[in-house]
């Protein structure tokens, strides 16, 4: 029943696939129930967002936006030689393009607000990343990040110290304490045999890592396998398959609409949009709740090339597709009835010093660590979420190493996949791999790390120096997991997805943002200029008034009367009725002496200046003694000797 007049909506197959029913994100039923992302803000952390374009402007959130490359509040992208700064705008359009405006496309969460943080179009440092991840973090609910380290199949990199701290701070304090949601694209290094476990953003426990499938449900050529990928959603495939239709910029060669958005870059914003729909129906979902709901509701689907394995908790995961395809209907219905997962519990093993050689395949090095009930007692950890392993290994060719982790259930995760292009001679130095494949399984038991050298060349043998196991999870028991699975399935009919059913949400924390009162440099410069101009004009005006009054007084008043120093004195005592109550700012510049020598303050110098109102000028004339009227025509700029008063004083 949903119809839009946006001309490209029929081609947005990822929203509603008429050609291949089911090969879409299943969102139309959610929209029909008025769940559109209202009240949620998603920020695209990228190269900028052209928020003035008509498909984005009505949903744009300036409060959540910033330009960190130029240090001003406006994240408009800058035209570049490669015509490449359209990326953020395309991602933004996927999330929140305005519907029914007869322009281009429709966003997944078209009722949400979209912000932009421009940070990729300039030099990027650890500190700048840290600023970006927490920018306006009480306004922005979801951070969509379709970027990462190089996907060249030989890079091992991720957030550095500050970026890690910012991600952690974001999930702890962002979104009024419920935690910022960071959505990252798993990477496009498939052609280089890359793996997202070499990307610290993708294998972080704080991020929702999303991969891509094409319209036929297959892993695209660019997609990476990964044990720490949560789920996949649709994107472009090879040349014969359709890509994602979304808003484009209209600078340079842009037209405002594109049919060519692709890569895992296009998948992550769709996931961000679906999470926005979840947050509309249940705003108090924590960052861990969101991950749980994705695990619980993602759907395994037929793909013979994928290595689907069902773990002990009943969740199926494949390195190619994560826990499966994101389904907006299932996500939103699950979110509606979700009660929060218990606090995050963790266990860290001692640093296990091994210093053992890594043999060449088919032989392997196997090291074990037993996690006992006593080990977990203090934290209360019962079932797993993420499992992480931090290793230090020396090897002359890093890409020849293969690492597998076995959870107590026997579930295997390929956490360190061999990479033929990685010839780095420095091995791994405290690099952390992770897996989500043991999600929901019991934490207690023996963990096995198996390492082998799959290289062809006879090189110096590698050495496992040390490793450390870190478990994350909760006090949910395996029975609790099963119960939750059953509860969710009962909600999938949609019976709870109406306004009359709402679980109570606790209030969030009030966390002030420290940059609330920051003046931007441009504003500050403007204020300083205006201030300087005002000061200059004030001084100039004062000088002009003083000097002009002085020169008039010295020419006619000072011939007969002594002058007092200073430009101001009290106004004349004799006042007519009109002058009563008149505040005369400009006063006689010279006092006069009566013929009998008594000083008075009759000014026969004119008290008027050109700045007084005409009526005041007339009044000033009336105050002048009769005998000085003829001297009113005071010549200006008389030489000093002619301006001397009776007593020889200089006016």
């Amino acid at each position, binding site marked *: 029943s949903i119809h839009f007049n946006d001309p490209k909506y029929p081609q947005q197959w990822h929203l509603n696939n008429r050609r291949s029913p089911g090969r879409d994100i299943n969102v139309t039923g959610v929209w029909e129930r008025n769940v559109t992302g209202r009240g949620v803000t998603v920020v695209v952390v*990228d*190269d900028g967002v052209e928020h003035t374009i008509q498909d984005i402007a009505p949903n744009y959130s300036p409060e959540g936006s910033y330009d*960190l*490359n130029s*240090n001003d509040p406006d994240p408009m992208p800058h035209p570049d030689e490669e015509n*490449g700064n359209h*990326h953020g705008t395309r991602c933004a359009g996927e999330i929140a393009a305005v519907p029914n405006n007869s322009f281009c496309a429709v966003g997944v969460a078209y009722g949400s607000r979209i912000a932009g943080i421009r940070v*990729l179009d*300039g*030099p*990027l*440092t*650890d*500190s*700048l*990343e*840290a*600023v*970006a*991840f*927490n*920018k306006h*973090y009480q306004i922005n609910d979801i951070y969509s990040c*379709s*970027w*990462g*380290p*190089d*996907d060249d199949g030989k890079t091992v*990199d991720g957030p*550095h*110290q*500050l970026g890690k*701290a*910012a991600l952690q*701070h974001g999930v702890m*304090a962002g979104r009024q304490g419920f935690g910022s949601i960071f959505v990252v*694209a798993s*990477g*496009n290094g498939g052609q280089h045999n890359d793996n997202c476990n070499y990307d610290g953003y993708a294998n972080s426990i704080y991020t929702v890592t999303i991969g891509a499938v094409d319209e036929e449900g297959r892993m695209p050529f660019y997609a990476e396998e990964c044990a720490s990928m949560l789920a996949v959603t649709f994107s472009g495939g090879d040349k014969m398959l359709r890509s994602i239709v979304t808003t484009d910029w209209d600078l340079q060669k842009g037209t405002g609409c594109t049919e060519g958005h692709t*890569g*895992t*870059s296009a998948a*992550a914003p769709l996931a961000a949009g679906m999470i926005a729909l979840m947050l509309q129906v249940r705003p108090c979902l924590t960052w861990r709740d969101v991950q749980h709901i994705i695990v619980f509701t993602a759907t395994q689907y037929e793909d013979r090339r994928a290595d689907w394995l069902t773990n002990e908790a009943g969740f199926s995961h494949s390195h190619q597709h994560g826990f499966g395809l994101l389904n907006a209907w299932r996500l939103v219905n699950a979110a509606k009835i979700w009660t929060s997962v218990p606090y995050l519990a963790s266990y860290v093993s001692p640093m296990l010093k091994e210093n053992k050689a890594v043999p060449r395949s088919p032989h392997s090095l196997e090291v074990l660590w037993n996690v006992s009930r006593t080990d977990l007692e203090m934290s209360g950890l019962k079932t797993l979420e993420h499992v992480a392993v931090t290793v230090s290994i020396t090897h002359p060719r890093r890409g020849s190493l293969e690492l597998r982790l076995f959870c107590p259930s026997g579930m295997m995760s390929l956490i360190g996949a061999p990479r033929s292009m990685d010839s780095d001679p420095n091995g791994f130095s405290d690099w952390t791999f992770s897996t989500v494949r043991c999600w929901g399984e019991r934490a207690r038991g023996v963990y096995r790390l198996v390492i082998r050298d799959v290289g062809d060349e006879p090189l110096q043998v590698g050495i496992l120096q040390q490793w450390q196991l870190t478990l994350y999870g909760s006090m949910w028991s395996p029975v609790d997991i099963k119960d939750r699975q059953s509860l969710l399935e009962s909600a999938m009919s949609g019976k709870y997805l109406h306004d009359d059913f709402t679980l109570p949400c606790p209030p969030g924390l009030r966390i002030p*943002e*420290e940059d609330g009162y920051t003046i931007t*440099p441009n504003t*500050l410069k403007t204020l300083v200029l205006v201030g300087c101009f005002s000061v200059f004009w004030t001084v100039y005006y004062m000088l002009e008034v003083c000097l002009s009054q002085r020169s008039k007084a010295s020419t006619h008043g000072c011939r007969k009367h002594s002058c007092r120093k200073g430009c101001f004195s009290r106004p004349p005592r004799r006042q007519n009725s009109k002058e009563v109550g008149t505040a005369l700012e400009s006063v006689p510049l010279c006092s006069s002496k009566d013929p009998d020598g008594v000083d008075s303050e009759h000014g026969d110098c004119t008290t008027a200046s050109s700045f007084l109102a005409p009526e005041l000028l007339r009044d000033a004339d009336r105050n002048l003694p009769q005998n000085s009227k003829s001297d009113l025509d005071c010549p200006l700029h008389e030489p000093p000797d002619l301006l001397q008063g009776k007593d020889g004083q200089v006016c």
Partner: protein
Amino acid sequence: LSEAGGLDTLGAGGLSWAVHLDSLEGERKEESLTQQADAVAQAAGLVNAGRIGELQGHYLLVQPAGHRQATEVEAMRQQAEAVLARHEAVRWHSEQKLLKRAKR
């Protein structure tokens, strides 16, 4: 302005460090940390460009503006490193390097 100076400095090839200061107690903790950051910056021959985002106790210290020869820059780097490494108020410090990130 100081933030802009920090970003411009790095973009123009200048040096910058992120520091994490030891936490202070008391009502005016933030103000004291800022003053401490100013003091650390001064000791290291740098300028305090302000707190890093929302991270309490983390500050960005940047090289003062001005053209310098390469040898001078290297001397400044070594001096700053030496000061930051032994300063009692600095819990952690790291020279900021450019990161390579790609859109996907």
